[in-house]
């Protein structure tokens, strides 16, 4: 199954592949012609000791020309196979990467990043071998084997028929090998994946490992895993040693023994043709070389197949992000999954093709002009894992231009509301509507272009300060970047950087303080001029003064925009049109700042605590 699917990737390269095979066969033919020419030279000229000048020069000329041609064909063929392989892998990579982009966050919550990295880069790399060497080897040697069998039948059909017994024996050998090796390779790959996961996690949390002095324990864990990997690898070496080349060679010797006995028996009952005996032995010798080469590649093939299977598994994951399942495709095609993608895959090489597809995939996209920004939560219940509800029966309405604040203790479900509004997850029951349209009918691109999120945990990309604000989609102008920078008062910080906006940002912005990272992520949001603002504990990491400036900026930003804000400091949300107090996933109080204070409930207690310090503990 996997192999058929892998071969289907070659379809767009049919012509090049044909050319490569043609060159391969031509090269082989030219190569084989050499010995024939030499034998003709020996029989026709050297043996009778006659050397006519023209004929000799002609022979030399033909020999050298053929030889050069075979060399050139060989080079061309090698290059073409490489080119096809690299193109197929490129396509497979962009396809699987593109697919992963549209998977739901619940998938990423469960799957370690290291595993995904190894699927997208390492496993596809292992698949490459299939196209580079395995295919050409099997075709070339298959043809060769066929030729040898034909020649053997011509020589002596009885003996050749006996040699046919070799085929089921070889088939059995191959099948045994495949059965065992697929198990062994899978274990090896899994262990390697586990090691990669551990490695990637360690690299990201190294400062904690060091601060907690767990280097030794982690090293021991890696060593244990390392030992397991070596064990698995050794098992595959043993398997290869038992069933591959050594076994084929043993088989060769047994066959030779059989042939010799056959002729010895024949000589007892009558005359033996010496020529046939020599030729048969020669051919048998040549028969096993291609078999060996193919068996050798079988190990590679096995690895490529296991890796390919893992890639396809990811490619077939059905855990689409809400609203990102390519539903515009006709139902039959969508159901066929990967096959369709493969068949229509030629188009994917063109930049932009995917964008077109992605847009077409979202039905009922709202035109931005109609966007007023009315947000409704209608009896929404939600759970990350399907077991524990983190939100229960949440209903509220944010009218266009209004600000609604969410307060509550940590873990009360505030962040989940924001995640749901961004359509990162599907609700368990109930409905979320924007301007009366259910979230499920709004395209995610459209939705997220209108909503500006400021996250708890600012994530910076490797690149420059500028690229972190503008990102890569080209939707943000230089002017918008500068505006955003001044709006969040990032200018003094940028002035301090030696290269200003072009200062490089290392992975995750590790060289900046968390406050600086937070400000940068502010600018990123603001630069996109969103219609709806979601502030997720946005001010948690910023000191009072910086926060004042940002509050001023946000006030300006909020004018005419619908805003949902989470803030721990109640002072920042006192002007909200509505404040929702959440407790363990439910709305327990709602109203304006004044109303809630008068109610004398949870909000008032939190408020008193904050401005009075410990004394007001309720």
């Amino acid at each position, binding site marked *: 199954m996997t192999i058929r699917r892998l071969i289907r990737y070659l379809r767009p390269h049919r012509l090049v592949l044909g050319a490569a095979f043609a060159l391969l066969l031509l090269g082989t033919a030219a190569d084989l012609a050499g010995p024939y020419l030499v034998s003709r030279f020996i029989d026709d000229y050297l043996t009778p000791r006659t050397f006519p000048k023209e004929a000799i020069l002609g022979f030399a000329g033909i020999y050298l020309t053929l030889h050069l041609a075979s060399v050139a064909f060989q080079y061309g063929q090698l290059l073409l196979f490489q080119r096809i392989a690299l193109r197929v892998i490129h396509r497979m990579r962009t396809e699987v990467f593109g697919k992963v982009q549209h998977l739901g966050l619940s998938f990423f919550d469960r799957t370690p990043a290291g595993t995904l990295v190894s699927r997208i880069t390492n496993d596809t790399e292992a698949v490459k071998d299939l196209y580079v060497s395995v295919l050409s080897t099997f075709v070339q040697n298959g043809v060769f084997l066929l030729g040898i069998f034909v020649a053997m039948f011509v020589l002596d059909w009885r003996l050749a028929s006996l040699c046919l017994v070799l085929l089921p024996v070889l088939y059995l050998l191959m099948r045994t090998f495949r059965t065992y090796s697929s198990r062994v390779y899978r274990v090896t790959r899994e262990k390697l994946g586990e090691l990669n996961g551990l490695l990637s996690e360690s690299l990201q949390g190294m400062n904690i490992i060091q601060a907690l002095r767990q280097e030794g324990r982690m090293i021991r864990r890696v060593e244990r895993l390392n030992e397991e990997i070596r064990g698995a690898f050794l098992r595959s070496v043993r398997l290869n040693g038992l069933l591959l080349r050594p076994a084929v060679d*043993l088989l060769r010797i047994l066959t030779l023994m059989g042939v010799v006995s056959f002729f010895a028996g024949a000589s007892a009952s009558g005359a033996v043709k010496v020529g046939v005996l020599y030729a048969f032995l020669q051919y048998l010798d040549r028969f096993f070389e291609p078999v060996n080469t193919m068996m050798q590649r079988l190990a590679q093939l096995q690895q490529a197949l296991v890796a390919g299977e893992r890639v396809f598994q990811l490619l077939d994951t059905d855990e689409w992000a809400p609203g990102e399942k390519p539903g515009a495709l006709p139902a039959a095609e969508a159901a066929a999954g990967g096959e369709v993608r493969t068949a229509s895959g030629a188009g994917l090489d063109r930049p932009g093709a995917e964008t077109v597809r992605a847009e077409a995939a979202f039905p009922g996209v709202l035109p931005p002009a109609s966007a007023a920004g009315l947000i409704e939560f209608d009896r929404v219940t939600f759970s990350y894992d399907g077991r524990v509800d983190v939100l229960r029966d949440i209903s509220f309405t944010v009218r266009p231009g209004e600000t609604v604040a969410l307060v509550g203790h940590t873990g009360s479900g505030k962040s989940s509301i924001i995640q749901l509004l961004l359509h990162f997850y599907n609700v368990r029951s109930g409905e979320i509507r924007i301007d009366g349209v259910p979230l499920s009918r709004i395209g995610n691109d459209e939705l997220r272009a209108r909503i500006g999120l400021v996250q708890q945990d600012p994530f910076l990309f490797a690149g420059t300060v500028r690229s972190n604000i503008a990102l890569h989609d080209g939707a943000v102008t230089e002017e918008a970047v500068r505006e955003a920078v001044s709006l969040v008062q990032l200018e003094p910080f940028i002035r301090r950087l030696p290269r200003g906006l072009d200062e490089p940002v290392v992975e995750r912005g590790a060289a900046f303080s968390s406050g600086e990272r937070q400000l940068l992520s502010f600018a990123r949001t603001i630069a996109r001029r969103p219609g709806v603002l979601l502030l997720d504990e946005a001010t948690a990491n910023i000191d009072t003064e910086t926060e004042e400036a940002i509050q001023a900026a946000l006030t300006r930003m909020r004018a005419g925009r619908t805003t949902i804000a989470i803030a721990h400091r109640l002072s920042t949300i006192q002007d909200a049109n509505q404040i929702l107090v959440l407790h363990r996933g439910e709305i327990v109080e709602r109203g304006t700042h004044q109303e809630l204070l008068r109610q004398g409930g949870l909000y008032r207690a939190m408020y008193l605590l904050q401005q009075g310090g410990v004394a007001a503990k309720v």
Partner: protein
Amino acid sequence: MKVFADLLWFFRMEAKRYLWGVATLVLVSLLLLVPPYLIGVMVDGIVDGTLTAGALTRNLLLLAGCGLIMYVLRYVWRVLLYGAAARLSQVLRGRLYATLTRQSPVFYQRHRTGDLMARATNDIQAVELTAGEGVLTLVDSLVMGLTVVAAMASAISWKLTLVALLPMPFIAWSTSYYGNLLHVRFRDAQAAFSGLNDKVQETMTGMRVIKAFGQQEAEKEEFRKLSARTADANMAVARVDALFDPTISLIVGLSFFLAIAYGAKLVVDEELTIGGLTQFTIYLGSLIWPMLAIGFLFNIVERGRASYGRINELLQTRPDVQDRPGAAHEAPRGAVEVDLRSFTYPGQPQPALQNVRFRLEPGQTLGVVGRLGSGKSTLLRLFLREFEGADGLLAIGGRPLDGYTLDALRGAIGYVPQEHVLFSATVAENIAFGRAEASRAEIEAAARAAEVHEDIVRFPDGYDTVVGERGVTLSGGQKQRLSIARALLQQPAFLLLDDALSAVDARTEQAILDALRAGRTGCTTLISAHRLSAVEHADVILVLEDGRLVERGTHRELLELGGRYAEMYERQQLESLVLKGGASS
């Protein structure tokens, strides 16, 4: 071939496996000559009709025995040589990881995760290939090539052998030329692959942001470019790579041509029979494989060299921070003294901290406040000795920080960072990350003190819920409190809270601070915060501005001073007043 010299340490380490492996390999190569001889004898016997049934059986048995012995020996050398190669990658992986655990944050700012991962996987694989397949090919082609050449020169004609081998040096020259070319291109290809890895790594960890900003299509386009660049770099490798075999074929062909031409002359001169010439070409034909193997060998070896270079570069990186000779192994105890003239991050033009002085008695609490980028967290992190180069005195119990081993120092410190790092493990394992042997009761006590116990019992599997990359989603506050519990469980003499309460609300903050005060008498605590309520009860409060200490004192003293701290406090009070006014109206 330089890589074999580079790997000499390993060949020595695994000398036994290699010696036996190579010996077995040579033995197999020699045994290979037996079956053709036995078959030749039998065939001659059949042709002459002189083969007796006894001789046939004897020879067939010999043949079978030879086949079985070769089968066993071939299995043996595979296990020995490939086993040794697997050992190399195991050793390299282990060393690489150990080196990585010793590197400071400066190193991790220089190297991206994806790149490090690529070196730990792809490059180690390439070196493994050199140590296994490479050694095998070298030995095999040498033994086979030399045997054949010896047979050609001794049995047929040394003159003809010499002429036929004339073009052979060209193989050595061209393969080493291609090898150098390949080295550069292969390095480039590996670097491109690293870049690709980096991109995927980043995308997979930052998926939430990418989705929230609608960057999926832009990310795909970026990835497409990188993937195309990787393909191009690999194509550049292939262009050289594909030269090896044809070049060798070309030269072998020339060698054939010379052999036939000169051989014909020798035949005419009656120095050689035609049969001898035919046999010679057969020998020459069996030289093709060793020659091709040499090309293959150069290829493997160049890849191995490039990859080993990339790995070695990391292995040779000296950790920025190391134990001083004579550093004390005992756990630091006593008063904290700081008289810091300046500290500058490596590679930064301006100092991050200047003229910071304070003293903290055992059991006291230090509060550090100041605005964004004022150096609060730099000051705390100096105690972990993550960076070298602080000018001035940082001491605990009268001994400078670098007078303790890193192990002793860090063992006495419980650190809660700004960024919460959790590992793919259960909640309990994460809390016990610094003390794997802690009992469940101790873990729960730490979780209670960090105000996270209530949250944990509400998780689907309580303390056995898996968190981290493949676990449940936690809020920022929950992660912070888990980090606090993790630090508390260590029962450290010094606790560093680096803005560690920023994502928890006021009630939880107070509860945690109360628990710290109640349970940690006698222990020294250093807190950096931007909310003054977190440091109000500290024995010493430092106010930092642009890395300089501008005020120092207790809450009361600083209020009386009427400076920056008082200003900040007033502003926070003012906010309260405004709110109060609102409340009473």
